[in-house]
């Protein structure tokens, strides 16, 4: 880093509370503390394709056979028992039998590539040529809790670092004034497992996801408590700085002490930068419209998508954006009525996601960003009750878009009913390995020593899906 420009910037920004511009102390300390700053940028293993990831997490489990994996056979078998059904796959034992349920939706051949996309995703359909649809995902659990854990951390058990933590651990963060791993929740609340979904597990807490809100104070404790003015805070911080520096001078070379002084500088700057990052209202009207902010139904997810773009612009490494919260119909968990549920959640997300892809592209950011769409599992091709669908882990769809990804491509296939992933099956570790690869990390080499063992995100499996890479 060029110290001079950094110093100039500090002076210009006026955001520092110390007298460092005069003494040049921060630079010296920051350098001394650099190895101790767990979030400092780190070089990848090889040249990355992308710098950031936006994971659009459709919590609850979106139905693949109603969105990206059309199955005409379900029309033919509607109401009849399909041969591939296995009773042990049902999560709702008494409600899910083997009878096929036809999709309430038509599919459109979209874009030049002609990818099939559900009619309730009309805007997203226009982005078809940017999408690489994987129709052969499978995972290890058809319960929300374990399946969420697996999609986040590779393991169905709790306690492992999530992929966002792995990336911030592996690459650090580009913008020290913002967290490297940000979580944006649905207006319905957090998914099951709560904060454990973005936990850093056995890694230091600095790598965990930081929930951001798209209105009000974006991060907890970002601003001084009520009744404490900015001026008052600045005065406190100046004295703090002076005493901490004197203490450091008496303990020269204690890098932990220097790092902690630097962390207060960062925190102070974060106050300005995080507030600025979430200032969506500063976006022009047409951009806001592009994300669906003019419609009550899509406004919440649209705000989060727009915020995600602003965070990517500002160098945030990993952004996890949840659609659906809490449980049942408030998520994509369409046990009772697939049409009613997916009508709503598709409408909530269609314009925001399409807007995000177009906007990223227009700004040249799509080339350096990986966008992932998917849930913790798919839904059964057979009916639950009359018109719902149950959880389904044996075959479902996700899609990728962005830098290093072939657009307009369909990868893998489920059987004729959409039940088993049969062609080029993709496991969660495969997906994780591919994601790390795009960021320039070899998933077999990115390890963290826990209890004496070098642990991987992909444990002992995972293959990079080279055929999807541009």
């Amino acid at each position, binding site marked *: 880093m060029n110290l001079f420009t950094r110093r100039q910037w500090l002076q210009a920004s006026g955001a520092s509370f110390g007298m460092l511009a005069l003494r040049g102390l921060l630079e010296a300390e920051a350098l001394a503390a650099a190895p101790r700053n767990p979030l400092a940028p780190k070089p990848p293993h090889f040249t990355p394709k992308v710098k950031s990831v936006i994971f659009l997490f459709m919590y609850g489990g979106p139905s693949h056979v109603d969105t990206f994996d059309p199955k005409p056979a379900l029309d033919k078998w509607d109401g009849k028992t399909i041969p591939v059904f296995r009773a042990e796959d049902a999560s709702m034992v008494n409600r899910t039998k083997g009878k096929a349920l036809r999709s309430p939706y038509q599919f459109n051949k979209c874009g030049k590539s002609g990818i099939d996309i559900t009619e309730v995703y009309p805007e997203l359909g226009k982005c078809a040529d940017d999408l690489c649809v994987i129709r052969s995902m499978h995972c290890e659990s*058809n319960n*929300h809790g374990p399946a969420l854990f697996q999609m986040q951390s590779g393991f169905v058990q709790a306690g492992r670092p999530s992929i966002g933590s792995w990336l911030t651990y592996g690459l650090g963060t580009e913008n020290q004034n913002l967290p490297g791993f940000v979580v944006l929740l649905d207006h319905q*609340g957090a998914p099951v*497992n709560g*904060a454990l979904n973005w936990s850093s597990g056995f890694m230091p*807490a600095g790598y965990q996801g930081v929930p951001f809100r798209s209105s009000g104070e974006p991060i907890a404790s970002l601003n001084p408590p009520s009744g404490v003015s900015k001026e008052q805070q600045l005065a406190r911080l100046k*004295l*703090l700085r002076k005493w901490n520096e004197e203490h450091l001078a008496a303990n020269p070379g204690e890098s932990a002490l220097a790092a*902690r002084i630097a962390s207060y500088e960062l925190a102070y700057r974060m106050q300005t930068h995080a507030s600025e990052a979430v200032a969506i209202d500063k976006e022009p009207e047409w951009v806001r419209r592009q994300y669906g902010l003019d419609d009550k139904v899509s406004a919440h997810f649209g705000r989060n998508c727009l915020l995600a773009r602003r965070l990517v612009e500002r160098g945030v490494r990993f952004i996890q954006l949840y659609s659906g919260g809490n449980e049942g119909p408030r998520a994509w968990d369409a046990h009772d009525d697939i049409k009613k549920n997916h009508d709503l959640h598709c409408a909530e997300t269609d314009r925001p996601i399409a807007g995000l892809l177009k906007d990223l592209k227009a700004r040249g950011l799509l080339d350096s960003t990986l966008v992932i769409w998917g849930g913790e599992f798919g839904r059964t091709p057979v009916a639950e009750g009359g018109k719902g669908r149950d959880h389904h882990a044996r075959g479902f769809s996700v899609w990728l878009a962005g830098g290093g990804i072939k657009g307009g491509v369909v990868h893998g296939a489920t059987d004729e009913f959409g039940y088993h992933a049969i062609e080029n099956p993709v496991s969660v570790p495969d997906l994780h390995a591919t994601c790390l690869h795009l960021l320039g990390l070899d998933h077999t080499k990115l390890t963290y020593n826990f209890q*004496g063992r070098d642990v991987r995100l992909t444990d002992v499996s995972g293959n990079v899906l080279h055929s999807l890479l541009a």
Partner: protein
Amino acid sequence: MKNAFCIFSMLVLASGAQAAPPAAALFEDGVKPILAKHCLSCHGVDKTRGGLDLRTLEAIRAGGDSGPILVAGKSKESLVLQLLTPQGKPHMPPRKQLAEEEIATLTKWIDSLPAEAIARTFSDKEKNHWSFRPVAAAKVPALQDDWIKNPIDAFILERLRAKGLEPNPPAERIDLVRRVYFDLIGLPPTPEEFEQALGDKSADWYEKIVDRLLASPQHGERWGRHWLDLARYADSGGFHNDIDRPHAWRYRDYVIKSLNEDKPFGQFVREQLAGDELDPGNPETLAATAFLRNGPSNEDNMGRDREKYRLDELDDVISTTGTVFLGITLGCARCHDHKFDPVTLQDYYRFLAIFNSTVKKELPLDPKVKPVKGAKVPSLMVVTEDSAKPRTTRLLWRGDLNNPGPEVGPGVPVIFSATSIDFPAPAPDARTTGRRLALADWIAAPDNPLTWRVLANRLWQHHFGRGIVASSSNFGLGGERPSHPELLDFLARELVRQEGRLKPLHRMIVLSAAYRQSSSILSPARDQREQADPDNTLLYRYPKRRLEAELIRDRILFVSGNLNPQMGGPGIKPRIHPDLLEGSQRNKWPLVKKEGPEHWRRSVYIYTKRQLQLPLLELFDAPTSTQSCSRRDVSTVPTQALALMNDDFTQDQAGYLARRILKQAGNDPTKQATLILEVALSDKPTAARIKDAVAFLEEQRRLHQSAGKNADEAGVLALTDLGHVLFNTNEFVYLD
């Protein structure tokens, strides 16, 4: 790559090398051509997918990353044949189906192999691994030096001198007092204790303090927290809706009480692993068994894979028991032989057989009360068994329920055959299998090579910030080597000699000169030291340490005068910012507008909601409690600074501190400044500090008055500002 050379190559069929001629002939003429045609392109010639090489008989017997692929003489139990069937998962070969006659040939060959179980042999390196050897009668180095206060110091000094290093001079009394208070009870001295400690002219002033602190009930609160980290203690299930565990706190109280009583460690082990077998009528020993069920659970959303969940939960029990008591990562052998340690798949399942019959129960505290579903009676979270007849345990190849192997009985890892145990058949009137008690007796035996070393090392780690073995829950071949092996053995023997009581060892450690030396980095020999031992492994100075999360919060409350000393009982739920509660409707954390004394208890009593940790604790590296935590991280990130700068908690407590100071010091700024510095940092402030503080108070008073406050209000606010600064200083969170 050091482990890439396969440990599996040491797997041999007992009589494999002399396989009967029919099998050998079959292999050459029938099996080899099939392998060459279908398999070797992925498993041998250019690559060895899944770590599996099929080129030679030895390599085939060795198996792949996920373990053996065949069971000699038992084609039905052989993984390889299961994968070749059309239903095989993953199907092999991936895009082909072997012809029936080819499969028949392979079946015939496997069945013709001598029906011996696969036996793992151990290399000398494994058998002689330092921590598996008996604890040696360590000879205290015969050093004569005034620095030496007890045998510990002789070990330390010998190693330092060997590197040409000398230890630091003793710490200032004021620093040592603070250090030993935080270390032994997790709190600073009261002002009276502080003055007394500084003024005591007797020769044994320090010993008196140490003995008083070790006898204090706050010692159990402090050291109990260390054990709760290991025991992954929490008050909720973690998964899905994070179901509350309203009776979990009885385990926490059991731990604190046990440490305060200085219960012999052997007893502590027996109660936690087998309290129900040891003394089934005793609520305290029953409460201890929650150790076996503190891990995360998914009771509200288990789905249909009940058996898998049951085994996952037992895996947590096995892993935790192995790492906590033995420093062995047994959990690594669930799917295949341990990659680094001489622990086999069979060892894992023998260990499973010890716990496999356990059930979880909520038993009424009063045994005369009949449990009523849904009714709220004081209860205990217990692990016990329903019958003396054990549940059958089968080995699972690759840890896969659909891939069961032979039946196994209870046992400890074979590598420990020297101290191995029999699991006697239960007595005719027994109500449980007795297996856990037998295991606990083995662990607690004085000659167990691991138990006492692991325990001594844990104590050392918490006193010095780093263990003699840095990987304190991994004493295996993949773990760190001890920096002072003889000292560790000496300490382990001390523990055994004291019949497993911890307090004598605590006392010996904190009375040592090594512990009492200064933490100063400044030394004429600094360059030499940092060159010879940059990490201070040899302890030429006491390491400067950050207070743990709980201690930071407790210190703030102590300093503000608000710490409520009430011990025990159900967990407390301090204020969490409403925005954070909003994120999750499942967390029934109350909305606290204003905190009161009921919230201001020590942090060890905070309700551990797995999905909603108290942010201040979480940010300062309190463990997530999903797995046993043997050593906390010490991370430094800006969100910690934000929390201490901006959270209502620090602001409120700074306000209480201000009023406390005002009451004692009146309106004299110098008196105020002196007192607040002294109280907050447990230190004697310098004149320069006092001058800074007085100037700051003056400036802040002006600031608040110009914002429209009257003189009295401005005075309190200025002191609040100063208190707030002190809570944030490095001196407040780092200990000399």
